[in-house]
């Protein structure tokens, strides 16, 4: 056994840097959050595993011929994976509550203020324009949108932005309530809203995805991929004639793509790229984005309350941030904290579905304004 052989065998240990060790620790933390806390495990577990495997010293999984890099090139670089996931999300989403209450659409718009306010903060911290826009998109509170937009505008920030988006998304039930309580009075939270369910015809359910696709895509071509895929999934679901495709899109395809997407994004969490002050700033700005979104939603709810002469419960505004369907449940929980039998879930679900659409629209608008393709 000569020294060359020994060197080959100890290559791994010799190349162990503090960065790789910190990154492996972060990977373990993500896995712990996924398993012990069940924070978005479907994505955080693969991301954590990808981060560990990519930061093993001399890991053959990354680099020109690495398998994780192959996965990255297969679906992240060309944005295919987030778009395929959107087909599945569309196939799983019921826009019924929104169709019953079309005016909730405006609440979805209000829930996007956080995007632009965070963009301003990021600019103030010295991030470049495309980077600031990418950080702002965390405020869309929608995983695939964040991945799609940041990959277009600032791929070097893809990893921290994705980690921030999914981490905080799983923390929505912790982040939202304090903001909601701070900005509303007990009386406002107790407002009851009548709910007259009306039957949504099959025709309406089919027209909705088609019209949304046409209107949004023609006016904001940059939003075409996001809105088109989301609405394609929904059209397949509501058409009821292509169950095989709907099932494949929302199950097999979504599962495999989620696994690949998580591993690929984790593999971009390389020490020297991730362990920078910028990452910490992004984590902080992401949290602020969530808070700002919630606050903007509630404030817009208060505005509607004024216009409707006290008949609108401002809590529902907070459901406009997307994070479907978690945000709507948090709103319902807060409402029933004040008043056990106050049932605002269906209104909140409407606002929540609007938030899903609005997030995608906002992502497209951001891309359009940046002029990137």
């Amino acid at each position, binding site marked *: 056994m000569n020294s060359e052989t020994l060197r080959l065998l100890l290559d791994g240990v010799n190349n162990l840097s503090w960065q790789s060790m910190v990154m492996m620790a972060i990977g373990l933390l993500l896995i712990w959050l996924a398993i012990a806390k069940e924070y978005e495990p479907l994505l955080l577990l693969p991301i954590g595993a990808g981060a560990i495997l990519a930061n093993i010293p001399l890991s053959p999984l990354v680099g020109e011929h690495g398998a994780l890099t192959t996965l990255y090139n297969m679906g992240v670089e060309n944005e295919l994976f987030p778009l395929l996931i959107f087909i599945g999300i569309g196939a799983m989403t019921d826009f019924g509550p929104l*169709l019953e209450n079309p005016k909730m659409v405006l609440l*979805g718009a209000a829930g996007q203020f956080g995007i632009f306010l965070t963009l301003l903060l990021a600019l103030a911290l*010295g991030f470049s324009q495309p980077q600031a826009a990418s950080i702002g998109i965390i405020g869309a509170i929608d995983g695939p949108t964040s991945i799609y937009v940041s990959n277009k505008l600032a791929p070097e920030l893809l990893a921290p932005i994705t980690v921030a988006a999914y981490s905080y998304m799983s923390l929505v039930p912790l982040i939202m309530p304090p903001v909601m309580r701070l900005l509303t009075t007990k009386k406002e939270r107790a407002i009851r809203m009548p709910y007259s369910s009306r039957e949504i015809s099959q025709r309406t359910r089919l027209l909705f995805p088609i*019209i949304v696709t046409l209107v949004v895509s023609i*006016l904001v071509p940059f939003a075409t991929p996001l809105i088109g895929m989301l609405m394609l999934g929904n059209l397949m679901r509501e058409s009821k004639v292509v169950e095989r495709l709907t099932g494949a899109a929302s199950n097999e395809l979504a599962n495999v793509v989620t696994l690949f997407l998580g591993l690929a994004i984790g593999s971009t969490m390389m020490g*020297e790229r991730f362990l*920078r002050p910028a990452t910490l700033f992004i984590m902080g700005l992401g949290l602020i984005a969530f808070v700002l979104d919630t606050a903007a939603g509630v404030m817009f709810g208060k505005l509607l309350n004024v216009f409707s002469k006290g008949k609108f419960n401002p809590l529902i505004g907070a459901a406009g941030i997307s994070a479907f369907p978690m945000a709507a449940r948090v709103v319902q929980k807060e409402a029933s904290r004040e008043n056990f039998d106050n049932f605002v879930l269906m209104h909140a679900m409407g606002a929540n579905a609007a938030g899903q659409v609005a997030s995608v*629209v906002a992502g497209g608008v951001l891309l359009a304004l940046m002029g990137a393709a």
Partner: protein
Amino acid sequence: MNLFEIPVPLELAPLEMAPLEMDWGWGLMMTGVGMSVVFGLLALLWALLHLIARGDEWAARRAARAEAAAVAQAPAPKPVAAAPASPTVTIADPDGLDDDTIAAIAIAVIKHADVRRKQAAPEMRANAPGSQLWASRWVAVGRGLQNTPWRRR
């Protein structure tokens, strides 16, 4: 744009940059234009959803009117004769089964037929019986439906 070819801007150290140089104008423009467009688009969507809802209501009204017209045109049903003393229908069954038993048997038969239907054409099965994995009967039904395009499911 291959991530692994992007020159990582290691010199990016946000705090050291002079915040004074920041392009507030651009940021505010983005916020203003961005939120306006988002609100504008969603308001447009709202209007369109309203139109569709109107369409639904109009269709429902027309259907109701058509129905009313049909009822009006139809000859008035003869007034029902005064209910006899014992109005309940009794199925006279020579085997001596009472109504409840017959109902139970009927439901059992329907359920059985339903189960058989779900099992569908067994000769189309590519898998061992008992396997619910591939459920190729679903495939069979799917193909069947494709082949009879005018029957609504």
